[in-house]
């Protein structure tokens, strides 16, 4: 009994110390000026034209991004859910890679591919003689769509595959067909998944930092980016805190709606679990290519794959190719391995790589342990105030990384100990960002364990420790591994918190990439990006290996 109390209190204690207390510091900054309660910070933020523009732009770009993501993702989701064709699983796997890709790599890919003097504008101008390049907003929207379309594709197509095929047949037997059937039978069934994936996309775009700060330039800035400069550059802590609170209220609201919306997906699933939905086989032989409709499908998939693969490929390409001198080069990789001090980073590139790996491994262990303890507590221990406990555990998901970092700085960087050991705070931030993912992956796995198995174990004499070690643990091991790998991948790609917190000696690969991109050292940046792509790809393969079909650890 005592052990159980400790187990369930440990994650809570960690969150209180490193999440709720920092959050409280932000609230204090927002509402207290010279120890008196005031809302003057909020008034100043809301009446300033600059901040007004930032807030409006944040919503504007998030809505547009979500829209573009749906436009891009839904046709693919429909085709994946409805048809079967050779290579389907491979294509589907490939287009989920962007989601685990570090966002700085995505941003770099879009700069190299579409940006000023980028690969596509160059090709275009060679052919037509017209110089074009996409502006910051378009790049942001495209990158967001690229990043989030996999969520839409995965969530919607798997909800289609879970549909009860008899429903559509029943409708047809009642004489229903065409638009009516689509609207009344098909659409209502995928609607919850559609809403959930759109909400999740919106939340991610709303709090997106790396893509906006890298691609947006000075004129396009979201709340998250503005928070960064308010605090880091202008040191207006009160206003930064007030803006953070406004952002927090919005993101928590949407996260709450999102969580509610996923509950209705599971309800629909439970109603119709008769048989897998029918998928139509196309392309059973080569002659099908003559069919116009099917040829169109092939072209569409080639386009889709190109859209998802080109940014990755262009990063790899540009790590070997200097577009200033138009030469192939290995300089990028040589620089990256050198232990020589780089003035752009304030430390050596080698150090950044070393830091990244260290944080990633530590985050993997930390976030997995935290996720394991928290999900074990919520699904196996009868705790009082259970729903409050679950709520306290899930809140970090709806808090932006910059707000979190701001809180950590305001609450802990006042002490010399943390000032000298800033790596602790960076690690804490990485763990907090990765934790919702490990938590989700592990609790999904735990909840899938048949409760009868636990009872069977108890009947055979197993106490709680036996039950966990001999029944739960072996069964949920794949979920733990998937969660751990996710945490690893998230940590290695994390930029916002590290950029906010780190002094030069503690920076990571993404921060170094950002510094190199700022001074247009694309070859080195791409070399680092290629390393990240490689690591991500391996993580991705491991996750696939453990049969986890859901992306994002079950989100």
């Amino acid at each position, binding site marked *: 009994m005592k052990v159980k109390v400790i187990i369930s209190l440990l994650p809570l204690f960690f969150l209180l110390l490193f999440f709720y207390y920092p959050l409280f510091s932000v609230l204090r900054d927002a509402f207290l000026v010279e120890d008196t309660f005031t809302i003057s910070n909020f008034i100043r933020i809301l009446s300033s034209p600059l901040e007004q523009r930032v807030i409006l732009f944040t919503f504007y770009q998030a809505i547009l991004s979500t829209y573009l993501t749906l436009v891009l993702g839904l046709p693919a989701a429909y085709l994946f859910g409805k048809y079967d064709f050779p290579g389907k699983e491979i294509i589907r796997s490939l287009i989920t890679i962007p989601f685990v890709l570090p966002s700085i790599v995505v941003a770099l890919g879009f700069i190299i591919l579409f940006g000023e003097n980028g690969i596509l504008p160059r090709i275009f101008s060679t052919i037509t003689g017209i110089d074009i390049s996409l502006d910051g907003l378009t790049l942001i929207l495209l990158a967001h769509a690229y990043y989030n379309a996999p969520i839409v594709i995965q969530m919607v197509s798997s909800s289609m595959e879970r549909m009860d095929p008899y429903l559509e047949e029943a409708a047809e037997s009642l004489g229903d067909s065409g638009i009516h059937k689509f609207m009344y039978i098909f659409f209502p069934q995928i609607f919850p998944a559609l809403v959930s994936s759109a909400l999740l996309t919106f939340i991610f775009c709303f709090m997106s930092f790396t893509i906006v700060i890298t691609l947006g330039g000075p004129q396009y800035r979201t709340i998250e980016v503005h928070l960064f400069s308010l605090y880091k550059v202008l040191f207006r802590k009160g206003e930064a805190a007030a803006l953070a609170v406004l952002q927090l209220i919005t993101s928590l609201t949407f996260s709450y709606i999102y969580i509610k919306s996923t509950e209705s997906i599971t309800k629909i699933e439970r109603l119709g679990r008769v048989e897998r939905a029918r998928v139509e086989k196309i392309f059973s032989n080569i002659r099908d290519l003559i069919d116009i409709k099917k040829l169109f499908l092939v072209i569409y998939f080639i386009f889709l794959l190109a859209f998802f693969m080109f940014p990755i490929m262009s990063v790899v390409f540009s790590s070997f190719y200097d577009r200033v001198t138009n030469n192939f080069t290995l300089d990028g990789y040589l620089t990256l391995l050198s232990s020589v001090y780089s003035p752009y980073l304030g430390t050596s590139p080698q150090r950044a790589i070393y830091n990244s790996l260290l944080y990633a491994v530590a985050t993997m262990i930390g976030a997995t342990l935290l996720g394991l303890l928290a999900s074990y507590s919520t699904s196996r221990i009868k705790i009082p105030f259970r729903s409050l406990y679950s709520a306290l555990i899930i809140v970090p998901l709806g808090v932006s990384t910059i707000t979190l970092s701001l809180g950590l700085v305001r609450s802990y960087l006042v002490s010399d100990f943390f000032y000298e050991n800033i790596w602790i705070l960076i690690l804490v931030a990485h763990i907090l960002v990765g934790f919702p993912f490990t938590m989700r992956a592990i609790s999904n796995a735990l909840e899938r364990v*048949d409760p*009868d*198995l636990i*009872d*069977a*174990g*108890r*009947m*055979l*004499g*197993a*106490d709680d420790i*036996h039950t966990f070690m*001999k*029944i739960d643990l*072996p*069964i949920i091991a794949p979920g733990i591994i998937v969660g751990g790998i996710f945490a690893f991948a998230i940590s290695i790609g994390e930029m916002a918190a590290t950029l906010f917190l780190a002094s030069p000696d503690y920076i990571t690969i993404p921060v170094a990439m950002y510094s190199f991109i700022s001074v247009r050292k694309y070859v080195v940046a791409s070399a680092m990006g290629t390393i990240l792509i490689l690591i991500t790809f391996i993580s991705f393969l491991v996750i696939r290996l453990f049969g986890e079909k859901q992306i994002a650890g079950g989100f």
Partner: protein
Amino acid sequence: MVSVTLENISKRYDDIVALHRVSFTAPDKKITVILGPSGCGKTTTLRIIAGFIAPDEGVIKFNDTIINDLPPQKRNVGFVFQNISLFPHLTVFQNIAFGLEIRKYSKGEIKRRVSELIDLLGLNGLEDRYPRELSGGQQQRVGLARALAPYPNVLLLDEPLSSLDANLREQLKWEIKSIQRKTGVTAIYVTHDLSEAFTIGDYIIIMNHGRIIQKGIPEEIMKSPANRFVAEFLRFSNFFEGNVVHTDEKYEYIRTARGTIFAALKMHQVNDKVLFSIRPERFRIYLNKHNMPKNKKANIIEGTIRSIRFESHYYMIEVETKEGNLKVISTEFNELSEKYLGKHCYLETSPENITFIKNKNY
């Protein structure tokens, strides 16, 4: 071995009474079957014995020891699940050995005990398979072996056959009975299936709405159902109400409201009101009065054939009489067809075939 006794066990979930003052003793070395429709509280009763659910009131005893406060893992009870629920990550051998390993038996002892059970349940050659590689019947045999391995005091079976198909069910129910005989373990078996209950049970408890309606040995229950609910659950039909109007040394004579006189074995006093049933297979149907046996004490009802339905191995005939429509089962009509519809007929049954229902209410 032990007997299991429940005394006044009650359990409520919010406003719903799951169990109300349930008391019985499951005798040592016998199979006790708890029978009832779904939601009657039979599974709750079983899970209370297992220790998964704590009762609100009442006492659970193994022999004379009260075990209310003993956690499930200390009760030394075997449980066989409706959904079989084998450990998916363990082989057949490891599944069966699970309880022995936890009790820290020696390697040699575990090996000996597991192979003993593998022989007993005919699982030879499957030791290294995983549950997903077994058929449903094999899986449930492993489930049984797993529950029996650590020498349990009591074996609890929660509808163990309901996830299997009909043929397999038929075969396994005999196996379960013979294994229980061989091991001598006290068993409590929950089911909603009548034929399973009466094949397997040495002692039967019938439950409805969280209460025990009747308990006894199978023959007793069949001979005199406690009330109309039990009678209908046991598939009695053709119910009659009447008054005892006359008795002699062997028989009593009952007059129904419609005036028919039935002769039955003597059990009541004159003027007693009685409810009784005649099972459909206890009637013999005659088209011609002359074919009926003459020298026998018999009840005869006249009627008209209204419908004939062929059921896999008999005919279900509905006969309209002045006592209402009666159901009759016959295997004798060789070429039953429409031509018999509307024909006049005689239903005959002897006084022994009249089953009294003790309580006229549900």
